[in-house]
């Protein structure tokens, strides 16, 4: 009489591997059946084209990183296809549609920000009446976005117009301004 444990073990192992084999076979047939359906019904993706695109991209990356290849016209100091060159900061001059002043294109956005009273510094500003803003304008100083009430670091900055902080302090007592 053989040891029952050994026999059980080997027959268990055999059964287990049989079950495993059947499950595996079944899974394989599942995949085969699905793929067969997809292929026969013409539902498969156009893998050839997709692979072609991948290949082209891989080639492109290799070519671009290869230093021996002439590099793409980099930077702003080139001649464009129309044969033009341009300065680093755009120097076209036009009129601001908010205040009417002549502004250089490359500095238009920072100007407009203050001009419109937008931007981070301006947003911290407490609401002021539009007459006060007009008054400041009529006094000939550039429109300032500085808020006398702000405690931001803007007090350390100098506006584009060159008005120093000292000067803007004068306006902080707005209610006492004369018109």
């Amino acid at each position, binding site marked *: 009489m053989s040891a029952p444990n050994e026999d059980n073990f080997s027959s268990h192992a055999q059964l287990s591997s049989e079950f495993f084999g059947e499950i595996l076979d079944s899974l394989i047939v599942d995949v085969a059946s699905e793929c067969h359906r997809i292929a026969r019904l013409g539902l498969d993706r156009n893998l050839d084209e997709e692979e072609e695109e991948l290949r082209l991209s891989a080639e492109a990356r290799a070519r671009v990183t290869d230093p021996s290849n002439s590099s793409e016209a980099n930077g702003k100091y080139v001649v464009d296809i129309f044969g033009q060159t341009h300065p680093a900061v755009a120097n*076209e001059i036009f009129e601001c549609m908010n205040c009417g002043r002549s502004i250089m294109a490359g500095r238009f956005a920072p100007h407009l920000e203050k001009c419109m009273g937008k931007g981070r510094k301006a947003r911290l500003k407490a609401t002021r009446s539009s007459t006060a803003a007009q008054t400041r304008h009529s006094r000939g100083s550039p429109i300032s976005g500085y808020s006398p009430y702000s405690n931001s670091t803007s007090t350390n900055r100098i506006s584009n117009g060159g008005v120093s902080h000292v000067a803007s302090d004068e306006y902080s007592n707005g209610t006492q301004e004369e018109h």
Partner: protein
Amino acid sequence: MSSSAKSSHENHRNHLLLPKSLLRNQSFPVSHPNPNLDFVDKDDVISDNFRNSDYSSCPHLLQFRSELGNNPFRNLQDCFRVRPLGRASVRREPPHEIVQCGACKQAPPRLYACVTCAVVSCHLHASSHASDLAGAGEDDGSSIASSSHAIAVDVDRAELFCCVCKDQVYDRDFDAAVVLAQTAASTIGSIPGPSPPHHAENMRKRRRVEYKPWTPDLKEQALIVEKSSPLQSQPIRLGESDSELPWGLRGLNNLGNTCFMNSVLQALLHTPPLRNYFLSDKHNRYFCQKKNNVNPSNRDTNNTTNKKSAKLCLACDLDAIFSAVFSGDRTPYSPAKFLYSWWQHASNLASYEQQDAHEFFISILDGIHEKMQNDKRKLQNQGSGDCCIAHRVFSGILRSDVMCTACGFTSTTYDPCIDISLDLEPNLAGSSKRTSAKSNPYIGEADSTNSSESTGFSTLMGCLDRFTRPERLGSDQKFFCQQCQVRQESLKQMSIRKLPLVSCFHIKRFEHSHIKKMSRKIDRYLQFPFSLDMAPYLSSSILRSRFGNRLFPFDGDEPDAKSELSSEFELFAVITHTGKLDAGHYVTYLRLSNQWYKCDDAWITQVNDNIVRAAQGYMIFYVQKMLYYRASERQVAS
């Protein structure tokens, strides 16, 4: 597999565009493949037809059908057993009947039940069952004798099998029966989901649009000559060719950290339907302002108020930019007025600092919509694009399905979308093992070869695969199932119900973490194709795949309609971002006349394909192929 594609991708470029067929005054039949249309490879057309009819069936199945008449699979209809979100199997009434081969008493992986007599055979004995019972026909072995026992069904997979051909075969009626069983199982007693917005009809109509190129008649020609003046453009020698440079190429001045705006504007200026709209004078800024200028003679002394009374209309400002950029003047243009208008519209974004180009894009489309709405009705169906040109061009419809994992009940919602934001894969480093990219608990499409594990880098199609794959919602997000009447774990799956004319893919490269209070930029390379077929991401494909790719019309589309044509897209613009999160630079690459141009603020240069393929895409623009015209190298004067 499509062997025909091998020949087509050699003349890959020429092939995908629509040159001659548009010049011929030919109708544009989308539903019937026309071998005369030479933009489609003839082999493609023929093989598609062949595929659909000849490959899926076999002579024995056809004969079986002719013998058994109208509903040959009727005795199977009650035998389908469907697990929720699972596949169908075939079982008879005693539920725990052990299924095994009649001949050898084994139960190997494939068991086939004869459709006629229900005898079960394994694949080894299936053909003998068919031939043994092959009726009273001639026994010369080559003729197809009575085939009533030739057709069997795979009991575990509900697939038809021809025992004579020893191959799986396909039949519409059978598939229909399976699908009905599957849908019945998941929607017992449920409220039918919302029907897709009634654009389904429109979609069908749109597919069958007859295209005729427009040429002015004599009266119109006279009008054109009288009311307009020709634009001057100097032909510029580019390398060896004497060709003229494309119209509409013009640098945009950087007004101070405004490259985010310039890059998006360049893409929009060359978005074909948008460009056509504005160049056709569909939004004339003079008429629009005149119509809406309430107080032309404003007595207010304040000059600025007077200026502001002009109606704020981003479409008008865009119209001005189109006019300027297509005027033939090649000196860089300053889009100052546009910036001013946009800052009035989007005051929360109005500041002198670098902005996100994608945020800007959404903002201006919203601005155009707001001012241009034809109808002030609140419930504007943005998906249909009837409200404004922005939605007409960019708006698509996404479908979201939430499926109960317990009973299969599916809740469906539709939402319009103006673009698709895609996540890059979390972390590729170290994932050398080829783990399955999807955790499909049920029948799904064959595993994508575009998963990054196989290629080593991320791909746009891989991102779209992930966007549309079923996602298991966490156990903390249990969805209330109307059928089960309790909260159940569920799966969510996105798909595209309606493709927009122009698809904008936004790659989420900027990560903002509120927890860590930091943001970072993901520089990882993303591959994107020059031609993109969106068919696998359509709701019809996703739905079909969910039901085992059965031959069954889903969502109203006809199975033999050649809808692939309307799902093919061509790349025309790429916005790239280089540099760091807060100190970076946007550049747009444009594809005009199959040539790529780099638009870097005021500098327009010509670049090679490779530069574009290797670039770090941030916003990638595709237009429907049938709208993508390949202009000839020489500008043809009409």
